[in-house]
């Protein structure tokens, strides 16, 4: 990774340089001062950069060299499923017939796009054991909110207006309680037990006539399978609530079990995790939502139907929660996900989950002797270690994470889930080889030794990155959120 600072693009600007080419205006000109009132014609141009095309290319190339992606090196970021992003996906998504089509074209002229979306929906329904899927939500959190709005519409259609609470485990992703709030519910926490699983007694205590739903990730954020899922589902369903599946950890269970078989009524998937849509530095994602039969009529509109004359959008959904996103979702990401599914097929997807779980357990066992293990049982696709032992030596989990940067690795997720002290949440994914896992384990073991023998090396890390630790307190206290010309 390059250590050279790269100036802001505004700082390499020089008036007179351009990096675009437009044809000469080939129509007779209208006098715009007559067409538009003077107040509405911009008097001061926006101060955008002025660079040549090569300046531009060098700028973004330099920035890319100061960034770490999956292609740069191992990225065991727990709960994020940083697997390989296939190159053919990028080629397919850029075909003119997918990238240059307008959402309002006549259905006759976009049959290929509709067919792709329909096929993807069918495949996702099969993978999750759901009856119907919508591709509209833009990302996981958007899917959560959509799913909760569907559950709310279901209860209200039954005259159940008192169901105002959504239960989330204390180990849940932060989006779960936030989505519940945005959907107008009150989020209630259910505790985890000493095994790291939902405490059924506590669940019985909080569940009731005001329960709209329980949101659950299974395997949960500790990487543990909620083995009492059948009893758990029964408790929620007996109380009249619905069961919501957060599909962030779907990579662990494909072909082994399906949310639909476990009793879940609604599920969202993160196509940018399990199904290889690239993470893009934070997005765009895609968060399709699948539902069981009794919830289908509440899905957002429009939905895609297959008729004898071809594929159609169906807007005639009087019970729908309405529209959650303009147009039909993040189609470009859905194209990539479908391309991936067709690369793997049913056997390949099942193998993905087996290998993801094998890789996680192998790395877990290699590291277990050197770190505290809060829950010592076989994990699924990820596992959580605790840096408590190192903390006693004055080395925090944050230090371990920063030291890993020196070895060329992206660190695991740290300080999450919240119920584990000094948590390190590690998800290797199935696309990593044993050699990569071994090399990472060796680095972690070396850091554990450094914590004992020369803690300052870890405490002062990173040493090899373009910048050292950044002052986040100052950034928040005196925010500088844009460039201002000196």
């Amino acid at each position, binding site marked *: *990774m390059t250590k050279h600072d*790269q100036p802001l693009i505004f700082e390499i600007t020089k008036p007179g340089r*351009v*990096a*675009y080419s437009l044809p000469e205006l080939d129509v*007779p000109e*209208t006098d*715009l001062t007559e*067409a538009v009132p003077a107040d*509405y014609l*911009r008097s001061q141009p926006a101060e955008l950069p002025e660079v040549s*095309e090569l300046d*531009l*290319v060098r700028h973004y190339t*330099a*920035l890319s060299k100061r*960034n770490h992606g999956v292609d*740069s090196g191992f990225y065991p970021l727990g709960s994020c499923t940083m697997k390989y*992003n296939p190159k*053919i996906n990028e080629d397919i998504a850029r075909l*003119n*017939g*997918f990238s*240059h089509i307008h*959402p309002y*074209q*006549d259905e006759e002229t976009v049959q290929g*796009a509709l067919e792709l979306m329909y096929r993807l929906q069918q495949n996702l329904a099969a993978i999750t054991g759901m009856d119907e899927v919508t591709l509209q939500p*833009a990302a996981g*959190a*958007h899917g959560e909110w959509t799913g909760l709005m569907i559950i709310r519409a279901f209860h209200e259609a039954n005259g159940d207006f008192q169901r105002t609470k959504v239960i989330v485990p204390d180990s849940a992703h*932060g989006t779960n*309680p*936030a989505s519940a709030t*945005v959907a107008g519910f009150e989020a209630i926490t259910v505790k985890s037990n000493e095994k790291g699983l939902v405490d059924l007694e506590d669940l019985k205590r909080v569940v009731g006539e005001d329960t709209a739903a329980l949101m659950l990730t299974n395997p949960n954020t500790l990487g543990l*399978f909620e*083995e009492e899922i*059948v009893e758990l589902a029964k408790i929620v369903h007996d109380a009249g609530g619905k069961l919501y599946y957060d599909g962030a950890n779907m990579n662990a269970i*494909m072909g*082994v079990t399906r949310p639909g078989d476990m009793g879940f009524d609604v599920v969202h998937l993160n196509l940018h995790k399990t199904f290889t849509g690239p993470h*893009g*530095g934070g*997005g*765009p994602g895609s968060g399709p939502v699948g539902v069981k039969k009794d919830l289908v009529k509440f899905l957002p509109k429009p939905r895609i139907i297959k008729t004898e004359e071809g594929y159609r959008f169906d807007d005639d959904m009087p019970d729908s929660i309405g*529209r959650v*996103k303009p147009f039909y979702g993040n*189609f470009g990401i859905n194209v990539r996900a479908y391309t991936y599914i067709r690369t793997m097929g049913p056997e390949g997807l099942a193998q993905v989950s087996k290998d993801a779980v*094998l*890789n996680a357990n192998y790395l877990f*066992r290699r590291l277990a002797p050197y770190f505290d293990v809060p829950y010592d049982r076989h994990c699924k696709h990820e596992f959580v270690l605790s840096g408590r032992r190192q903390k006693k030596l004055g080395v925090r989990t944050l230090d371990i994470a920063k030291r890993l940067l020196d070895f060329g690795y992206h*660190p695991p997720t740290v300080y999450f889930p919240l119920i584990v002290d000094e948590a390190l949440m590690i998800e290797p994914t199935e*696309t990593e080889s*044993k050699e990569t896992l071994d090399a990472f384990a060796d680095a972690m073991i070396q850091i554990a030794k450094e914590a004992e023998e020369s803690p300052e090396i870890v405490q002062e890390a990173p040493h090899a990155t*373009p*910048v*050292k630790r950044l*002052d986040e307190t100052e950034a928040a206290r005196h925010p500088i*959120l*844009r*460039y201002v010309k000196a």
Partner: protein
Amino acid sequence: MSKFRYLPVTEEDRQAMLSTIGVESIEDLFKDVPEDVRFKGTLDVEKALSEQELYRFMSSLAAKNVNTKETPSFLGAGVYDHYIPSVVNHMLLRSEFYTAYTPYQPEISQGELQAIFEFQSMICELTGMDVANSSMYDGLTALAEAALLACGTTRNKKIIVSEAVHPEGRDVLRTYAKGQHLEVVEVPAVNGLTDLDQLKAVVDDESACVIVQYPNFFGQIEPLKDVEAAVRLSKKALFIVAANPLSLGLLTPPGAFGADIVVGDCQPLGIPAQFGGPHCGYFATTKKYMRKVPGRLVGQTVDEEGRRGFVLTLQAREQHIRREKATSNICSNQALNALASSIAMSALGKKGLQEIAHQNMQKAHYAANKLKEKGLSVVFAGPFFNEFVVNVNQPVREVNKKLLEKGFIGGFDLEMINPAYKHHMLIAVTEQRTKQEIDDFADALGGVVHD
């Protein structure tokens, strides 16, 4: 041997790894999955294809779609066909950007963080606002989030939105509002513009915000100065403007008219239409609301040695910290598309953005005049940017079928949003359309209308 090219674990690896774990088989790792919920058999998923077969099959699906690279399009309505410099795609394919996660580890994410800081700066420049975030899903969910911010900060529940705002934006807004028990009041449009008398009649101290679009859904340039005066009749309501960022190369930015929040979609700047998504919402506001902005913000700071660097900042607003107290649940955003827009804005630059906006406006005005010459009536008389409405005197759907036979993708059928706009077609003309194409389109549309 694995036959899946993304799966590196060999049989030999597998045995060695199982032995380290201390189990006999992979099955032993799934023993905690109860028998009752086990999936038996093979998933009903379509079969795997080789890379060559897959490319052929996907190309055949793509070929079933009429694309705007090959067929000139006059369709807009929120999604536009614009020039995308080649450099945009080449830089986007730098995998250090597209295969990275959210930059939570700033020491190895300076590239992404700096690019987003630059994006935020460019959006502030364009909109005339103080602060912009790192992106939202799209312009219309950004609009809904702006309304939620307004309701949160004013503690009012009444959202006023113009009928001249994108119909799908109003739909999405209603869905979001339902979740929070908020009221959405629509102000009708007259002559293609927000009815200011009606707006004045509904705006009051119980209002959380007033939302208009600029240029509006019909392509008309809303008189923001007059709208703002109406908004200020309320002591509390925020003034929210949804603006097409490309138009701001030429039009006075909403910030200059006192907007409190400006949102929109960066699709016109470097992002292909791709059937409606992913695009890239932007969200800009004043310093006053900086700490209430949804989504991620990048800020400038220094490292331990005093070197400039960038970090995600003011994270106390966000869901992963505030959980159920968060006012927005957004997590993933559209970072890669924000990067695409930054690259496009840098490529166009100060001059190019003005020139491209100018060409849009000129070509749209030329096209409107051509259509008038062909006997069509241009429906609304106010100033417009790159879109306008014509009456085609017959169902737009039928007209578009005939236009397609003549090799054109026609405009948007306004009857779909309101029966009052029967036979009204919304036509977009961008810099991509040549004079020849506009002339031919005018001939074709004139011919269809008079047949």
